[in-house]
């Protein structure tokens, strides 16, 4: 099978992007991704779009975006894996290049969520469990799903609301340094604890914002990397995948996400690395508890010790494994289908040491890990990159 590299990347500014439509927003990522690869839209035979959809007026967003970006005629698909739709799109493009079906493929993530009101966004994401048994009568929301995990984690391991707040504080600190982040202000533990409750014990500042944004990566086979004289490819060493039950009530426990554990084991095994080899990671922190569970599920620490990592600064620059140096979903923003692609753009920059020194992870092995969850661990993807 072919080796697959990221040879180009593009990223829009995240936030309220009501001044552009979905296709225009996508162009902001696709154009620089192609340009940085030395390609034009006509060179790319296959494009995948990560987009959960439902927020904007276009039912077939991939077609509209491909046309706007000059990719009409390319093979095309929209991938849905809830908040992991972006990685699902990358995985689809990666599989096409890896199998030799094409030497180049473009993976785009695009989502516009700000054009509908917050209560409707809560409605749409809340329905994304098992509608009949969890939404129709019980009105679950996305924060509520993670709140069930927060309560269980706090009860079993002594994780506190302050620990959760520290995750938000860290991610806002790095987000403030990231020019494309949605929320670019620092916060304090007190501010998190005093913010209004969304679903107990999760408060406003424990939750990621609702964002618009796009990101894109160009994937190439080893042959194409040589042909194009790409100087600094970032190789996709492995992509692990898994899923879990739609009904949250069928989960074994609520202190972790099984799909993350399975996907990471698969990714580590294929890349022949251990968690200790990872220099920098982006993990799915849609809510603060999600980041703490990710530390544990990905093997950065033992089960139940996630809070210690944030207390001891182990996931900051200078710590054992810096996490979410772009601000994470929490501060950078979480345009659902874009997030997985955005993580790979950020990690490509980290591996190439292209970000501001203040938020650059020190590189030893030049290995990075992206962890992208869809729903409450309904979908799980883990990607290992190496420069």
């Amino acid at each position, binding site marked *: 099978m072919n080796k697959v590299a990221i040879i180009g990347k593009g990223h829009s500014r995240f936030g309220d992007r*009501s001044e552009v439509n979905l296709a225009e927003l996508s162009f902001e990522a696709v154009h620089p991704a192609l340009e940085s690869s030395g390609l034009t839209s006509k060179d790319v035979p296959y494009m995948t779009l990560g987009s959960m959809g439902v927020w904007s007026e276009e039912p077939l967003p991939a077609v509209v975006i491909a046309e706007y970006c000059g990719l009409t005629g390319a093979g095309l698909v929209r991938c849905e894996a809830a908040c992991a739709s972006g990685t699902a799109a990358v995985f689809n493009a990666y599989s096409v290049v890896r199998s030799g079906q094409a030497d180049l493929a473009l993976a785009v993530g695009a989502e516009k969520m700000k054009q509908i009101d917050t*209560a409707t966004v809560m409605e749409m994401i809340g329905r994304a469990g098992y509608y009949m048994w969890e939404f129709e009568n019980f009105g679950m929301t996305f924060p509520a799903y993670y709140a069930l995990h927060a309560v*269980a984690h706090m009860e079993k391991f002594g994780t506190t609301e302050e620990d959760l707040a520290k995750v938000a504080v860290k991610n806002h600190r790095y987000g403030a340094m990231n020019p494309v982040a949605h929320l670019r202000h620092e916060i304090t533990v007190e501010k998190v604890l005093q913010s209004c409750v969304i*679903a107990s014990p999760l408060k406003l500042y424990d939750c990621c914002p609702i964002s618009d944004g796009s990101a894109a990566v160009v994937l190439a086979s080893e042959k194409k990397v040589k042909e194009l004289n790409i100087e600094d490819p970032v190789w996709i060493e492995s992509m692990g995948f898994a899923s879990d039950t739609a009904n949250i*009530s069928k989960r074994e426990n609520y202190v972790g996400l099984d799909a993350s554990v399975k996907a990471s084991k698969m990714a580590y095994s294929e890349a022949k690395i251990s968690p200790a080899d990872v220099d920098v990671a982006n993990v799915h922190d849609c809510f603060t508890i999600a980041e703490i569970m990710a530390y544990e599920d990905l093997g950065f620490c033992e089960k139940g010790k996630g809070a210690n990592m944030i207390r001891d600064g182990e996931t900051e620059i200078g710590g054992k494994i810096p996490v979410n140096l772009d601000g994470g979903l929490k501060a950078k923003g979480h345009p659902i289908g874009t997030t997985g692609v955005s993580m790979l753009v950020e990690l490509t920059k980290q591996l190439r040491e292209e970000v501001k020194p203040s938020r650059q992870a020190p590189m030893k092995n030049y290995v990075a890990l992206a962890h992208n969850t869809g729903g409450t661990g309904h979908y799980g993807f883990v990607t290992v990159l190496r420069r």
Partner: protein
Amino acid sequence: MSEAPSLKSNRPLTITYNLPISKTTKFWKELKEGKVFATKCKNCGKLYFPPVADCGNCGSSEVEWIQLSGEGKLVTFTEVIVKPASFSKEPSYIVAVAELVEGVKVLAWLTGIEKEKITIGMKVKLEAKVVSDKKFAYEFVLA
């Protein structure tokens, strides 16, 4: 939503879904009688809640109906303060997951208790609940 120039679409979309229950009719009939049922695969013995007509575990479509005792212990919970649009008129509600003595877990509202008094592991009872004339659901109450 921002002030950027935009055109308001003239094509509003209203969708109400019909939720098929022909294969789980007994569940809904029994709820009306105040009973909560699960299904059990006759072939492999797996117990299902929510009830199913087909066993994903072994592929059999031979299932039997089992009435649940309703007795269970609280596993986790949350109070939903910021609600989805279609629940906007509801007061805040507590959603809980409890494990029943039969071994299945159930997600439902927990009523009749303040959030501050809830503890993990406390005994709860799953009961059928009348939502409206034609609608029935289930909820946890204190055991």
